[in-house]
């Protein structure tokens, strides 16, 4: 049996192809202006890597904010359900999943089987999502990758007054004018995002182990900020952006029986 999970995120589309429970191929493609085109390209690329014809996939399950728009999907599952399902497959013993993408953040409490017990979502406000770090790196004129690393070089905490990403951008500009080192500004921004995420995590309750998934997990400054705020280490899977697509592919297998 061949199944696929497709995760239609705000910024990237991810596909994982499973053959009898083993990952055969995966791909990630920038969403761009045409979600359909991005989804098809991503599916094609993953199928090529798996050495299969996309037409031979028995069941495709879509997840992510744009899941209703996924082409050729046989079923769909919420982001929360897919993240939980994928997580238990990747690592045992995780009871709290923090999933932060470009435009959404989620905190999910799960049991040992990957069943969702409770969750909280922020999809309303950029201040608790990846888009915030992105716009701040633009304001500082450094690459997003560099921006995250800069944060680790700082040993100073500057509290940000602004709660809102739009207002924070002006605050960052003022800090630049005040000759504040970029590394300290970077840390201030990551701490600000982390504090929003952590307050969301506290709403569902913190049960060890805690895992961080989603595209923002690639940012070491952000991982560090959350760890400091929670005062505990996080489990970050090797490929944090594929966890939900993997979860969707596993669900596709369950539904195809």
């Amino acid at each position, binding site marked *: 049996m061949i199944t696929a999970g497709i995760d239609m995120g705000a910024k990237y589309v991810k596909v994982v192809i499973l053959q009898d429970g083993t990952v055969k191929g995966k791909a990630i493609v920038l969403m761009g*202006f045409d979600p359909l085109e991005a989804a098809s390209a991503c599916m094609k690329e993953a199928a090529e890597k798996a050495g299969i014809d996309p037409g031979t996939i028995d069941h495709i399950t879509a997840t992510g904010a744009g899941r209703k728009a996924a082409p050729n999907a046989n079923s769909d599952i919420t982001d929360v359900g897919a993240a939980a399902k994928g997580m238990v497959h990747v690592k045992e013993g995780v009871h709290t999943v923090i999933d932060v993408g470009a435009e959404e953040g989620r905190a999910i409490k799960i049991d040992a089987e990957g069943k969702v017990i409770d969750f909280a979502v922020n999809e*309303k406000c950029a201040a608790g999502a990846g888009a915030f770090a992105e716009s701040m790196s633009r304001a500082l004129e450094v690459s997003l990758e560099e921006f995250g690393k800069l944060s680790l070089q700082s040993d100073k905490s500057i509290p940000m007054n602004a*709660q*809102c*990403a*739009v207002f924070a951008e002006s605050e960052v500009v003022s800090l630049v004018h005040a000759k504040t080192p970029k590394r300290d500004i970077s840390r201030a921004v990551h701490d600000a995002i982390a504090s929003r995420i952590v307050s969301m995590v506290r709403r569902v309750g913190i049960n060890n182990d805690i895992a961080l998934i989603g595209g923002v997990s690639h940012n070491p400054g952000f991982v560090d900020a959350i760890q400091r705020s929670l005062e505990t280490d996080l489990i970050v899977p090797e490929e944090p952006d594929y966890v939900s697509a993997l979860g969707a592919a596993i669900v596709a297998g369950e539904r195809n029986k």
Partner: protein
Amino acid sequence: MNENKKEFWRWKEYNWHDENKDPKSADIISAGVDVGSVSSQAVILLDGELYAYSNMRTGSDSPNSAKNAMNWALENTGLTIDDLHYTVGTGYGRVNVPFSDRAITEIACHARGGNLMYGNTVRTILDMGGQDCKAILCDEKGKVKNFLMNDKCAAGTGRGMEVFADLLAIPIEEVGEMSLDVEEEPPPVSSTCVVFAKSEASSLLREGWSKKKVLAAYCSAMAHRVVSLLERVGVEKDFAITGGIAKNAGVVKRLEKELNVTALKSKYDTQIAGAFGAALFARTLTEKQRKKASA
């Protein structure tokens, strides 16, 4: 950041004084200065009547912004800051006004100023400022009974409108009227967050929406956002809007429609309400001071 880019969000700065009034014949010259997060206004009253005002962008520090606004209001009046009997500072930079005798919150000042500018029947004042939005309930004397404020989030504040003016490359003074020039009302932009609304607007433009249609969708989203704030505090007729967005017909008309009220009109500039209220307080405080001195 982009020094050479045209700044569509910038609105015109101006000052005014009444040439038919003689400040030397006034008993009390009182002044108010409202240092907001985006703009600053100074107002000068002669015995409680409007004599001069200015409206300009707030600079990087409050004391200078307050001084500049006041000096600009005083321009060509023959008066200097030393001629002012009493000055009240208000707004977010109120504690940093070097020449003020007292600081009073902008909530109290907007209620007091609104009471004079729109008449004493006004019971609900919506102040739509540069980086915040306040719904204020007040009594016939212009005293605050209750209020609610959003200063945490750019949605529903002037800042959101500035972002859209820049995105669509349309001067901020024109966006309101333009948004009304649509054949039918589009559904409002669905994202609350200004950052997300911006991406949403870009998608709509790519789908072939006209700039006017996108503006209409944003103005109605903004109106809706503010209505939810108003509903939490309760809207009492008569209703008035102060601040910069009061000049944006696209938001105001949609707000009136959603609330099913007509906002009161005023012959005064909506942006000077806070400074006007501060100057009215300053006049009262001068009288109190004089009574004390003669007692």
